């Protein structure tokens, strides 16, 4: 099949949003009879590329060719007309209509304007059984079926429309293992029928299982197109995060050697999981310990952290606290148990831009104390000035609006806010993203010195060096699973990278 011409070819695609280059010089070639994986970390440009292809966004520069003929796609309908069909992650069908209607609505078989239901049901059953090997009652409303079946119905609709190219956008993210296998069987069958399938995923295992070819994006840029069988897992991961293995040097860890002398266990997760977010995992964090969470973006790091804070409700498992109390908790209880959580979305979940530095700092403490025990203005000022000095926040003016501060200083204000509540466990999700080197180093140092005073940390970062530098122990996640715990001498970039790549 390799001798064939690509059915769809995108060349030198550029797409800019105000202030951001979402896609820069991206190529994509889809061949008939192939499953082509589109890989990249979150924010690499996968979604943008798909939206360009489906006509949701228009391209700024570049060329799209379908079967050798240059086309321009300006709306979802035009994309469909060109033979490109998309099945989105969230199934976009009508749950109240029957399966058959969902496949045919808008194109129902009619005679003299009258919809021929029998004909429609027969054809729907035919498409599902012949092309997808699914036997279901097509006269039942769609909502009676699982998400997996709904997705198949969406694929059936896409196929019936005209598809030469089928785009599956993260189709496996809400499916269980059996459902994924069923989907893969169908993808293999469609491949044999000569369809070009673009499979967007962030699961490495699934990519290797089903794909023939893979295109990797990073930060909106085209990294390369490879045959899946020629690309080792390690190379794949290195290309996704943009590093060469030979350049991975061993930085001296700032953390002292892993000690058994850490204090009691502060919190212990047992069998904790949440469907579609993180598979069951165990993890205990001891007093004064910094546990790093490493893994690709989208591997389940944030999801794991949110379970610790109670921001999401787990489907299974529990948290055990000192003194034997256990259970699932809410963020409110987490704060009572002196757990703090600094989210990765500084702008949307952290700072309140129109309040001053002082007001932002005292926010969590005030919330903890309740409305009836307000801090006096004098106390507020004292606290704010103290932390501004301690964390070296610039400008050192408590009445400055926080939105006018730099990213690094905003982050420090957030740290101050939580530190003020004297947490015992501090969850930091990407605390140094988008801030300058100097501020980064200060935050890392702060983590280390606070941990030596007995504060525990769960530290998430995409930068391996940083995780290595501050962590006493590193937990590696891959495809929403905890795959490895690395400590002591084994903590180096190669080992972590191997664990991230897996298999």
């Amino acid at each position, binding site marked *: 099949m390799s001798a064939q011409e690509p059915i769809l070819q995108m060349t030198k695609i550029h797409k800019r949003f105000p202030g951001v280059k979402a896609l820069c010089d991206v190529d994509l070639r889809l061949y008939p009879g192939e499953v082509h994986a589109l890989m990249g970390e979150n924010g690499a440009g996968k979604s943008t590329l798909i939206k360009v292809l489906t006509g949701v966004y228009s391209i700024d520069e570049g060329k799209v060719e379908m079967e050798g003929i240059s086309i321009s796609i300006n709306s*979802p*309908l035009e994309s*469909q007309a060109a033979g490109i069909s998309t099945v*989105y992650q969230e199934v*976009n*069908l*009508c*749950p*109240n*209509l029957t399966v058959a*209607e969902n496949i045919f*609505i*808008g194109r*129902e078989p*009619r005679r003299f*304007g*009258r*919809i021929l*239901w029998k004909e429609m049901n027969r054809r729907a059953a035919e498409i599902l059984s012949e092309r997808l090997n699914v036997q279901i009652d097509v*006269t*039942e*409303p769609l*909502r*009676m*079926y*699982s998400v997996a*079946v709904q997705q198949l119905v969406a694929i059936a*609709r896409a196929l019936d429309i005209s598809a030469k190219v089928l785009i599956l956008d993260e189709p496996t993210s809400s499916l269980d293992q059996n459902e994924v296998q069923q989907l893969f069987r169908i993808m293999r069958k469609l491949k044999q029928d000569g369809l070009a399938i673009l499979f967007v995923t962030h699961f490495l295992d699934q990519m290797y299982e089903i794909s023939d070819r893979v295109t990797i994006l990073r930060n909106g840029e085209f990294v390369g197109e490879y045959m899946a069988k020629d690309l080792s897992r390690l190379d794949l991961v290195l290309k996704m995060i943009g590093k060469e293995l030979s350049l991975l040097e061993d930085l001296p860890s700032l953390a002292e050697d892993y000690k058994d002398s850490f204090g009691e266990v502060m919190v212990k997760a047992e069998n904790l999981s949440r469907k579609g977010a993180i598979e069951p995992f165990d993890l205990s964090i001891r007093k004064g310990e910094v546990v790093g969470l490493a893994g690709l973006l989208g591997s389940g790091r944030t999801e794991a952290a949110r379970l610790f804070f109670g921001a999401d409700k787990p489907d299974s498992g529990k948290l055990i606290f000192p003194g034997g109390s256990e259970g699932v908790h809410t963020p409110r209880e987490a704060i009572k148990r002196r757990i703090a959580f600094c989210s990765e979305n500084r702008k949307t979940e952290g700072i309140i831009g129109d309040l001053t530095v002082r007001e932002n700092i005292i926010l969590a403490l005030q919330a903890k104390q309740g409305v009836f025990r307000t801090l006096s203005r004098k106390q507020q000022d004292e606290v704010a000035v103290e932390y501004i000095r301690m964390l070296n926040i610039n400008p050192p003016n408590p009445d400055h609006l926080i939105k006018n501060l730099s990213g690094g200083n905003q982050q420090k204000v957030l740290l101050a806010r939580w530190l003020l509540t004297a947490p015992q466990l501090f969850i930091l999700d990407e605390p140094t993203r988008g801030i300058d080197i100097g501020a980064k180093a200060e935050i890392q140092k702060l983590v280390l010195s606070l941990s030596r005073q007995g504060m525990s940390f769960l530290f998430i970062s995409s930068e391996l060096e940083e995780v290595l530098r501050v962590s006493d122990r590193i937990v590696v996640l891959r495809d929403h699973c905890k795959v490895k715990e690395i400590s002591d001498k084994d903590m180096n970039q190669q080992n972590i990278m191997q664990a991230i790549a897996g298999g």
Partner: protein
Amino acid sequence: MSLNRKYIPIVVTILLFIIMFVAGSFRYTGFFSLQVLMNLLIDNAFLLITAVGMSFVILSGGIDLSVGSMIALSTMVSASLVQQHGWPPVVVIPLVLLMGAAFGSGMGAIIHYFKIQPFIVTLAGMFMARGLCYVISIDTITIDNSFYTAVAQTKITLPGGSFISISAIIALIVAAVAIYTAHYTRFGRNVYALGGSEQSSLLMGLPVARTKIMVYTLSGLCSALAGVVFTFYMLSGYGLHAVGFELDTIAAVVIGGTLLTGGVGYVLGTFFGVLIQGVIQTIISFEGTLSSWWTKIVIGLLLFIFILLQRVLSARGSSLKR
């Protein structure tokens, strides 16, 4: 073959009607006759017509509160033009229907293009139409036009000696056409899709704007037609006709098994929802000693039961099958 779950609400509605009718027949002499059944249609023709229009609105996920006022306005305009200005009914009736359709499509366009909740837009429409009645006249205008009185008094005799009115026949035709439209035309299915998920309908390339505006146009048209039929029934135009009638209409649709959140239900259910309201009234008038307000109490109870039934059914529906 087990009963498909999607038919349960409508089957319950039909059974309820049959049970009530049978119960009434056993309890009261003279209740069990074709004429009582026909009277249900004759007395509720305008409710049926309005409820049919309302069914489409609710199926699409919307609501139309302006129907009662629209009926009043239709009676008022008809009475004024025929009685005070001497226009011929053959001109007045199409004009009134056109007015209703235009009013409805205006509301539909506002709802769609400005993305405002149907509740608010049609509430405004309700006040406006009601207010317009009083611009025409604050008093009742009695109609003695020969066409109107002739239609009002015409009784079409059926085999077996019972009779039916022209209004009831109009209502039956409207209901039949609506059932066909809902089930066998693209417009009808698009209404269901819209009620299921507007976002999905857009992504599936369905004509969302057209469908939405059409739905309110249809409801406006139906309520204007109901107004015309109401004029035959009352032989007058009055600004206080059909006050609160929009709520009776919504009740009929819901008792007919249509989900207020849209997307689920049948026009046939609405038909029986109307008949159930009628049969309650009939039973109470046969009883003789009960106040007519008992109608409202029973309807209130039924509404509760139906809303709970739907809740239970949809909760069970979400336990998935593979």
